[in-house]
């Protein structure tokens, strides 16, 4: 990790590959969090009062 960093450079945009990995990682985490099924069966759920 102490090697010289690699950069993506397009016009005015410039970012180190490491930072890019982290940013993409955040977007991926967000996407997975929204799409992966959440464990836990709904059968254990209690019916509340007053709602259909």
């Amino acid at each position: 990790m102490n090697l010289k960093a690699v950069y993506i450079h397009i016009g005015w945009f410039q970012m180190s590959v490491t930072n890019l990995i982290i940013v993409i990682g955040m977007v991926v985490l967000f996407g997975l969090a929204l799409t992966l099924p959440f464990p836990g069966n709904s059968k254990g759920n209690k019916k509340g009062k007053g709602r259909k």
Partner: protein
Amino acid sequence: MNDRRSELEAAPWSGRTRRYDLIKEGVAALVVVTIATVALSTLFGSPDDKQITFKEWAVAAPADFYATTVQELAGSSGTGGYGAPYNTASDGVNLGPLHLAKLMGVTHPVDTVNDFVITPLTTVVNSGPVADALKQWQSSDSKTQAAWATNYDNALTKANQDATKVPSGNYGPVPQLSGGLLSMAQAGSLDGALLSQGNYFQSDNTKQTLFMGDGSYFNDQSTASNLQGSTWGMMNETGRYPGQAWLWLYSFWYQIPPFNNGDSHPFGANADAWIMVIMGALSLGLIIMPLIPGVRSLPYKIKIHRLVWKNYYQEENL
């Protein structure tokens, strides 16, 4: 939004519930994050590029150190002409007619001549010529001192920082003083003297940092590590480590016009102040985002929430 809906959303939930163990969830999160942190720490360690000392600078780039010292004596360095909070040499950065730095005054006085050069020189035993030069300097009035230093500074700049190519002139003791400080720095005694300024306890590195920043050596190291603000350096870290990616928006403004237009352009010269104001406003915007028309309606229009609550919407036929 209508009040009735808000009322319902604020009321305690009376619909279906599910078992949920908050404490177990918290402990699990702590365990997972701890393991992940230990793993990355073991695999990658952390960045720690060695600090630059004045000794390192003076040994590695003596001509640069020498020329910077001359500039400090002449008051032509970056710090010398900075203005508030260090001195009154200029009005500093402005927001149009607003000179906020100047308004707050000189709260951290820095006298480049004495703090950076003369006082440190008085803390060591100098060789004959340097000691004589110091005496000559101290017994002259400030006008003469400034004239000597400016003459030599200009001549040295013309000679491309090569002291051996400077023609003789009315420089007073300036060459000897600068040479004396160079030897002192090379020997390693300037680092401590700059910090302590004749005191015992000292925890303020302002003077060292300003002096070091006036030279090229420090700046060149930072350029080599891609840390310059004009090339997104704010987000970067030394080596291949992740930097402060959360500063992307702050860093962004420095890359685009009019803020990257250079010091001759009013927005380029005062980019620091304008960008600080922009980021202050945007931060406030984030804090009160739910009150901002348009932005606060986005979640209703782009229905990402249907993914979050897809099970519930399915079960309730919503």
